[in-house]
């Protein structure tokens, strides 16, 4: 039987997001030229939440984008079935701006590597920061996050499930141990 540990419930997640929103503004040096880019799937919703929180706190309107990194994956030539490709839509220009890449879980770092390559094809931001709700360790590439909501130590077959109410009807983060792959 898989065991499920709740890492964040909805109210804990709300306060974590609140803190992250503050840190994003602080590390970006303000909201000028700021773009939040969510990685499909749940990064998109999280970026939207953070943009809302930053907007509420600062009165600024924050540009949003979404990025699907499927076509930049480094394992496309080895996996069999083609993964579904989602929507990518970025603001007209990211040239010279501060781009904050938002994802739900940071694990091997391969998704972020792909995201950085994809962003480079859209322009040359002044800075790129990485903001994740959960850092579960286990990096396979030299990539670190600038803003982290929650850190948790995991082993290989653990699963970190992030739920957002837009897609899942509730907010929360669960650590699932011993689930069949």
């Amino acid at each position: 039987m898989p065991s499920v540990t709740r890492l964040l419930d909805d109210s804990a997640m709300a306060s974590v997001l609140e803190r992250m929103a503050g840190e994003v503004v602080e590390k970006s040096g303000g909201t000028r030229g700021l773009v939040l880019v969510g990685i499909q799937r749940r990064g998109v919703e999280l970026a939207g939440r953070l943009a809302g929180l930053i907007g509420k706190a600062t009165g600024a309107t924050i540009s949003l984008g979404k990025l699907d990194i499927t076509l930049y994956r480094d394992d496309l030539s080895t996996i069999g079935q083609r993964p579904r490709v989602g929507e990518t839509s970025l603001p007209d220009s990211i040239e010279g701006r501060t781009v904050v890449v938002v994802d739900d879980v940071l694990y091997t770092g391969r998704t972020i590597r792909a995201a950085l390559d994809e962003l480079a094809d859209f322009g040359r931001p002044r800075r790129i920061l990485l903001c994740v709700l959960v850092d579960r360790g286990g990096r396979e590439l030299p990539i670190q996050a600038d803003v982290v909501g929650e850190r948790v130590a995991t082993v290989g077959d653990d699963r970190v499930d992030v739920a957002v109410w837009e897609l899942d009807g509730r907010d929360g983060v669960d650590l699932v141990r011993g689930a069949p792959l």
Partner: protein
Amino acid sequence: MTTPTLGKDLIGLEGLSADQLRLILDTAEPFKEVSERAIKKVPALRGKTIVNLFFEPSTRTRISFEFAEKRLSADTVNVASSGSSVSKGETLVDTARNLEAMRIDMVVIRHPSSGAAQFLGDRIGSNVINAGDGKHEHPTQGLLDLLTLRDRFGRIEGLKVAICGDVLHSRVARSNIWGLLKLGAEVALCGPATLIPRELVEVGVQIIPRIDDAIAWADALNVLRLQLERMQAGFIPSLREYNRVFGVTKERLDRAGKEIVILHPGPMNRGVEIDSDVADGPYSVILPQVTNGVAIRMAVLYLLAGGAPEWQAI
């Protein structure tokens, strides 16, 4: 959840399920955006080698495939029948086997004989994509027509589509018929009796002999090119008479007094099957069809390049 996959090859729409058709159409959506980027290139097929083997003249389809391949970062080689060993009498299989010996991954083939793509796909390990074989099928054209209709109407199911003109010689018509019927559209054929194969009624299409009746019935007209190069003689009395009886003209559309979407696979015989003021008019989606063609071909290349058809969790 099991997602449908495509097999090794794309030979025709007849062999695909509704789920497989929807998979291709849905996959094409994000690829539309790639062509709107400043850098129109993603690395999805990096390192793959694709041969475009064209045994018949083609501008639109060949260029569209080439753009699709290049925008996915594949390496491409174009082989035309003239100027290659084909003109020295080399057989199709020998040409393909020689290409395979150079370690290619995919072949896009256009051939005057029906069944050529299937024949090739059965004999080589590379993925084969049919870019039109004789009078059989032109699956990527059928798919881009479906995508264009879905863009316009938001659905395929329940649409009434009339395919007009030279159905007899048309692989585009056959791919359209299969795709439309599988996705739940109603299909009618309209054209001179000499150019409408009556046996197609058996697959579930109706025949509307008069173009005015077809216009009155349909939500969309797919106007086929009169394939003069495939006609020896006797199919139609004259081009002028064809235009008078079956031409899609502004007068006819005005008389019907309704909105209707006009597709044409190109190249057009302006003033024969379609008048210029219709082709360039407000109901025409002929250029969106061309734009969608690149996205559809990117989707097909991307989906087939996976190779192994077994399901794997991502």
